[in-house]
């Protein structure tokens, strides 16, 4: 009987120590939560974003921090486990009392933390290109919406310069981002007069590794005599075997160009790009862009990370822009209070590393330039086309009937993430 009581006491003490371990924190710092997977399947992409956050915070602290306080990063590992994302988000906001969180990569992880951020009124900066169809009051989307990536890329390929493509393969991993993007593209292409038989849609599971059949199907589809391109929304791990198969089966970019929305410099670093020269990527940022801001940033990044082979990519730039805007908004608001900072975020501008100025819109999406690049043999993209100015990110796509009628605007009179009419029109 004593033993049982002892057990209970021990368990209690353990729980207690766990509970108290997070409680002691200094109030004279501004805390920034970093919610990126450092283990599990998504560590491949997200680890670099954790590094870039530490880098940006370090830079800001060198400049004297914010509001006279040092910024303290709070790094946690949600381990590519979606419910753990929600737990860690709650821990960051409620226990660590962070002032803002930068994090997430996959849509499902964002969906998992979204109710937590809304419930606790936190602030999340989400840096990855995504499917859109969302605008939360508590999330700022600094990655590309489909209209900032997919549509310009397809327009480019349809143009004479891009090869006058008439036949399209939409290949993607079976999850919501490719599904949405492909739906948007499908209706866009049909609106442009592409007949249904010239569009092939194919979905593969996550981490698909055997691409022989699909690449062969693509070859077959492309043999119809019309110029064919592949729009790839293949995700993560599956890309390397996909591109290796493309290269090995001798599909050259001149014949069947592949434009990808999820393959950036970081992903290419793991592939021998020799056989891939000419395949395309559409992003808001390329590391190869020749601009003074970019050069300075890469230099500082290499110095910070201590490795001049490390790449800088689009989601990293998105974090850079997001962090810069947040820091400015905090300075303007004079506080880290979420509501005040949110108000200060609207209309906030920050220079893109590729030139031009990014602006935070009231739908919580950025205006950014769109760049199309061809893969080079050194693993970089060479920009072959870019938009004249910036493109406003659309939370709700105009090409989907259900979403076309929705508006996201978090300022008066709308104050709404998905409304058909303003909430405060009658007031």
């Amino acid at each position, binding site marked *: 009987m004593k033993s049982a009581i002892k057990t209970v006491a021990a368990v209690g003490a353990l729980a207690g120590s766990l509970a108290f371990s997070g409680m002691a924190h200094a109030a004279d710092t501004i805390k920034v939560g970093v919610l990126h997977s450092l283990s599990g399947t998504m560590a491949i992409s997200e680890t670099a974003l954790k590094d870039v956050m530490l880098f940006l915070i370090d830079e800001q602290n060198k400049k004297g921090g914010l509001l006279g306080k040092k910024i303290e990063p709070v790094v946690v590992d949600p381990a590519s486990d979606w419910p753990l994302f929600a737990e860690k988000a709650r821990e960051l906001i409620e226990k660590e009392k962070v002032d803002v969180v930068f994090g997430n990569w996959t849509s499902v992880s964002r969906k998992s933390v979204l109710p937590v951020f809304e419930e606790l009124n936190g602030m999340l900066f989400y840096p990855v290109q995504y499917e859109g169809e969302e605008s939360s009051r508590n999330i700022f989307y600094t990655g590309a919406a489909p209209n900032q990536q997919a549509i310009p890329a397809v327009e480019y390929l349809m143009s004479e310069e891009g090869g006058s493509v008439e036949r399209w393969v939409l290949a993607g991993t079976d999850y919501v981002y490719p599904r949405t993007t492909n739906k948007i593209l499908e209706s866009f292409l049909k609106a442009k007069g592409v007949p249904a038989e010239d569009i092939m849609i194919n979905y593969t*599971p996550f981490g698909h590794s055997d691409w022989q059949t699909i690449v062969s199907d693509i070859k077959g589809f492309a043999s*119809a005599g019309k110029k064919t391109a592949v729009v790839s929304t293949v995700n993560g791990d599956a890309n390397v075997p996909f591109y290796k198969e493309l290269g090995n089966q001798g599909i050259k970019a001149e014949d069947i160009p592949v434009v990808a929305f999820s393959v950036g410099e970081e992903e290419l670093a793991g592939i021998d790009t020799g056989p891939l020269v000419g395949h395309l990527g559409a992003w808001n940022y390329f590391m190869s862009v020749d601009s003074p801001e970019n050069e300075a940033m890469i230099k500082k990044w290499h110095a910070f990370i201590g490795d001049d082979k490390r790449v800088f990519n689009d989601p990293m730039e998105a974090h850079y822009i997001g962090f810069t805007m947040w820091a400015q908004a905090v300075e303007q608001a004079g506080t880290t209070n979420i509501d005040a900072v949110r108000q200060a975020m609207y209309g906030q501008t920050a220079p893109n590393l590729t030139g031009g100025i990014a602006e935070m819109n009231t739908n919580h999406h950025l205006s950014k330039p769109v760049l199309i690049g061809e893969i080079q043999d050194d693993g970089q993209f060479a920009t072959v086309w870019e938009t004249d100015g910036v493109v406003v990110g659309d939370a709700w796509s105009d090409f989907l009937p259900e979403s076309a009628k929705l508006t996201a605007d978090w300022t008066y009179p709308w104050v709404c993430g998905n409304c058909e009419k303003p909430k405060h029109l009658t007031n």
Partner: protein
Amino acid sequence: MSVTNNADASRMRTVFFSILFVLLSLLAFSFPAHAQQNDAALNAALSDLNARSFKAKTAAVQALGVYGDARAVAALEALSEGRLYGRKSDKSVVIAERDGKIYRLTDPATGVSAGEATSRELKKIIANNKLRGLIRGVLGQLALSSSDSELRRAAVENVISSPTGGSLALLKSARDRETEDDIRARLETGIATLELGSDDPALRRAAVDRLADGNDPEIKSLLERRLLKNADGSFVESDAQVRAEVQEAVSRINDRLALFGLAEDLIFGISLGSVLLLAAIGLAVTFGVMGVINMAHGEMIMLGAYTTFVVQEVFRVTMPAEAFGFYLLAAIPAAFLVAATFGILIERGCIRFLYGRPLETLLATWGVSLILQQMVRSLFGANNREVANPDWISGAISIGGGVSVTVSRVYIVIFCLVVVAALAAFIRYSRFGLQMRAVTQNRGMASAMGIRTGQVDALTFALGSGIAGVAGVALSQISNVSPNLGQNFIVDSFMVVVFGGVGSLWGTIVGAFGLGIVNKFLEPVSGAILGKVVVLVIIILFIQKRPRGLFALKGRAAEG
């Protein structure tokens, strides 16, 4: 409507430029001496390559094609391969070869050295796909008259795949000159594809005759388009007689293609099977022979793949460029040793305490796998590592009918069979193999006969791990090299071994190829995802019928 108009207009423009270009290039062939003298035009075209707009670059490429001399060819090749740069200081165009940190420059107009420069002083001249396609066609047309038959062969393909308005005349004259039979045959086919659009029905009929023997899906769709109707309701192919022949040709090609399709599924299935077999073969030793459920098996494959990466980097630094391609051969023993060493460590440090408790080895080795993953992540970083395909295993072999087999996969099939054969021979004929079998069958008796069972266990596990490492070398050629590499294979590996029959090497082989082929025949019908689900369900149901797998030992001995 406006969309089609635009497209039409652009097509018209293309045709116009092409005709112009061919006229110019014909001119160039007829008066090469004149062209070479005109260096000013060459220089102008070269400097136009450095223009900002792709339109100007296109014109410059075409102008260089007109030149057709060695200097123009060198410049075009350099542009297409990304070796053409603009020097920032004087805006001149140079060909640059990277040599360590600096670039050695050549002036394309003179072919002489133009000194050296650092990457900061240069700006790469970007070619896009369209430009590269154009260059390919231009160089192809120039190379059609090359004396090197290999060059001609490639050139014919290039001209056929990037045809322009003047290609027909070029191909015909090339055919008349051609001495090699196979190249001439290819030229004939190319001519036929172009003559299919001729105004003369007789020519068209001849072309259809010629093409009906082929089995190329591109030709098939070319023929099929002759059967369509125009917007005004008339047939594209106006002659009914020819139309019937086209119909006949299409159906003949279709019959052949169906066979090729089957062959393709079979080939893909064998290839997938060899990958499964490679992934599973090490497990067949550790699980099949020793009864150890090694959840860190996938990590052994991963270690092999990372060893390949390290060996590659060592070769890159220490070896001459010609030898670089052979890093893979060096990686095989290295991967074996690394994985085997880890295997011994795991066996001695962990598994040996757990013999007879298979389910607990499962949990402990799961812990090992987590540690190994994190170790690799900490050492090499979380992202993928690049492992290059050496030239000798790149590319594809076309076997007709639009079916091609990639060379790397052929090597993997061969490699996999060699590994299995070596393993089987080792187990069967070597002294250690004998001891291994003895310990597996009767530990006590083997021990009584003076076999050091502990040592045999450790070495058997090392063998299984080492083979997994070797598999990692092969898999690095077609898959990610990342800390998650092993996780992608572990479930499949277990399925193969259990399906084939634990303890039976033969069963593992048949199981792997069987599952690979079934999967590939299902995939076109059900899609990749459902295909895999179906395969798993088949395995589950199959195990009900034969709980010990395909090739299980029968009788009392197996029921222990």
